[in-house]
């Protein structure tokens, strides 16, 4: 398959729908775009790299609309925080692009970017893993000790009710958006894997609200990226639509699962996903391309499987609890 907008064969359509479903489920559960899974998978299907990124961004736009709306219903989206973050994210993306261009002129792009990416994913993944293993499953990290709430006291301040934050510097939130926007553009990834933990540990947001709010950011950053790639003719619209069919189901299920999985478990699974994708990038850096693709192809469906399993168990338990209440009322 090439980036020509031709109709996919039946087998390709099944593969695209499956990719959309897995990434929709995992992305909506973690609050990330899932570019780390989609781009290599599309590449394996025969998409050139640039077209794989463009097609992923286009489907991500539709998928994040679905996931954000579902999280909104669950009360997991902090619109004020999302809006403030965007003020930093968009200039951050631009600054990241400028830095990449400078590295490219120096001929250092590939090696520097990949090592920074591996290091960042390794450190972030290890820190989340350590924290989530040491805390209770239903416990949230102490938000009042979050770095940007405690140390960054520059006026004006804002109250983020949905996140349960009484007072935080507007500049602190914008700065976080700027830094994560820069990193996402600099490293060529959606940035959700960095932004979502940053919202939890640096802003002190509850895990589920960080997931929903990050998806709002993904909607805008994905839409902006899709626009840029589509303008260059690097989007396979039909493939993106086919993926969106799978993602429409997956992202609803992933978002619903956040209601039944303890916050600590969400962070634990996130740590596994971050470390897994870091291992895949490291394998690629050292020439083991097949191993890298294998890790990602196992990681995506496994995460989706665990999330769906947790959702089914949660729904069954809640139904049983409701039935018990009804029975006791009747008795």
């Amino acid at each position: 398959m090439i980036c020509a907008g031709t109709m996919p064969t039946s087998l390709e359509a099944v593969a695209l729908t499956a990719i959309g479903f897995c990434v929709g489920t995992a992305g909506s559960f973690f609050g990330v775009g899932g570019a780390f899974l989609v781009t290599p998978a599309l590449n394996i299907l025969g998409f050139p790299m640039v077209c794989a990124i463009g097609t992923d961004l286009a489907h991500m736009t539709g998928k994040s609309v679905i996931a954000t709306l579902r999280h909104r219903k669950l009360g997991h989206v902090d619109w004020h925080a999302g809006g403030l973050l965007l003020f930093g994210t968009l200039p951050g993306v631009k600054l990241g692009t400028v830095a990449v261009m400078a590295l490219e002129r120096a001929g250092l792009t590939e090696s520097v970017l990949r090592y920074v990416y591996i290091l960042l994913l390794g450190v972030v993944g290890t820190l989340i893993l350590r924290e989530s293993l040491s805390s209770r499953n239903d416990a949230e990290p102490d938000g009042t000790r979050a770095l940007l709430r405690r140390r960054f006291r520059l006026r004006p301040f804002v109250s983020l009710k949905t996140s349960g934050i009484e007072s935080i510097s507007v500049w602190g939130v914008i700065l976080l958006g700027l830094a994560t926007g820069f990193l996402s553009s600099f490293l060529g990834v959606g940035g959700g894997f960095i932004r979502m933990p940053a919202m939890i540990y640096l802003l002190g947001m509850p895990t589920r609200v960080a997931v929903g709010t990050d998806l709002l950011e993904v909607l805008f950053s994905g839409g902006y990226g899709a626009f840029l790639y589509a303008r260059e003719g690097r989007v396979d619209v039909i493939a993106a639509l086919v993926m969106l069919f799978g993602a429409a189901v997956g992202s609803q299920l992933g978002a619903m699962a956040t209601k039944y999985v303890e916050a600590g478990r969400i962070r634990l699974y996130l740590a596994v996903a971050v470390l897994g994708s870091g291992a895949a990038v490291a394998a690629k850096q050292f020439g083991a391309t097949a191993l890298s693709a294998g890790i990602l192809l196992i990681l995506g469906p496994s995460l989706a499987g665990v999330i769906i399993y947790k959702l089914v168990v949660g729904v069954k338990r809640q139904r049983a609890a409701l039935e018990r209440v009804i029975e006791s009322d009747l008795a």
Partner: protein
Amino acid sequence: MPHRLLLEISSSNFAIMVVVGMATTGLVLGTVVDRLLCWLGMVVDAKGDPR
């Protein structure tokens, strides 16, 4: 030059159509799947609680 300008506008319009089209499709598909999940008894109310 006018031809080049036309090409530029056309590709930008196409890009806007892709983004708006994807977002709208997402909205429609999301609503359809939401109704379907309700029908299957997995979601009920505005809070997303199962029935």
